[in-house]
């Protein structure tokens, strides 16, 4: 997957919090995967919902889209394999995010 960059990486109002947002991705992925492993679907749905709401605001519409798909399949009570697939897609996107280093 090509690297993903924030639409706001050149916005001085935003760059610091974009960096902070991206720095927390590993932690978010771990939480998402723990929820799936433990079968805590309500929590998984809520975490996906939060990423859906925040992603676009930080200049990552791809995150909003993938997190939205994940939230949707969990909400619909889809098969675990489907949920797992959507989760992996989301994590792949999160891993592809590149943020310029702080000066």
């Amino acid at each position, binding site marked *: 997957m090509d690297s993903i960059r924030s639409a706001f990486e050149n916005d001085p*109002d*935003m760059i610091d*919090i974009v960096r*902070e*947002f991206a720095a*927390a991705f590993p932690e978010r992925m771990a939480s998402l995967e723990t929820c799936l492993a433990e079968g805590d679907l309500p929590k998984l749905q*809520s975490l996906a*919902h*939060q990423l*859906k*709401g*925040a*992603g*676009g*605001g*930080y200049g990552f*519409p791809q995150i*909003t889209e993938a997190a939205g798909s994940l939230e949707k399949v969990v909400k619909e009570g889809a098969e675990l394999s489907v949920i797992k697939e959507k989760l992996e897609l989301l994590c792949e996107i999160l891993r592809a995010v590149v943020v310029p280093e702080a000066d």
Partner: protein
Amino acid sequence: MNTELPNPNRVLVIDDEESIHKLIAARLRPEGIAVTGELDGVRGIARAISESPDLILLDIGLPNLDGFQVCRKLKEHPATRNIPIIFLTGETTMEAKVRGLDMGAVDYVTKPFEQAELRARVRAGLRTKRLQDILERQSFLDGLTGLWNRPYLDQRLESELNVAQRYGRPLGLMMADIDHFKIVNDTYGHLFGDIVLQGVAEELRGYARRSDIVARYGGEEFALLLTDTPLSAGTFVAERLRTSVENRHFEVHGKIVTVTTSFGLACTENIAGEVTPDALIHAADRALFASKDAGRNCVHLCDGTEIVRVTGNESSLYIE
């Protein structure tokens, strides 16, 4: 005395996602808007009550209380009822929007939001708040004198008393009543009576500090709430006011007319028994009655159970 309205610019975000707080703060800060945040409804409500923000951005999917429940509680509480609420949420269904707006929210924005849109909607919400502030202030002002009215004084007396007690500071209350006002009205007419009320109000306003509350308490009676002021300092203010009212010239049909005022002072430090708003008013009233009894145009204070004459002129009425 300060009746100016500050520009509304404080926004409270209630959202369980901290990155949303930071995002909103970054987007609104360039507009001169200060953002604070809480992660759940219970804390959000508590903060709204204690800080009375100018606008609340409210998520729906929250732990403990959901956004609709938070909205209902905020609309029920007298301290938060008039704060505009904008739902900011990932719930995009028409039903949720209708429900939110019908519960009293002024607007509904879906996440993820476009920054320009959020800013514009927040600006619109703050304009609503400004109008509400103006309406509220109007309802607390006395139309004739431009001073605060009695309902406002009652409200502020209660809150200033809380502050004074919390910080162990003295809170003074001065009551002033124009002497023989009925005679002034009967002799020169009500329009002239109004001019006298406005003149006395102007003297009071002139002596009040920014933190003091000057109110028309009723008819020809005025109240001055003196923050952080012990009896000694209050007496000084009362005596200066008494002489400046006495020396003010009112003109009617080419004639100079003067009026006098009687004063009663009380202070939270000198109240016998429990210090309540009623006890403070009662003490100042007793001192005021003593001034009337003593021939008017003088100042009395209430010290514990005792009423003490402070100063005053011997003659009380100069209607030529």
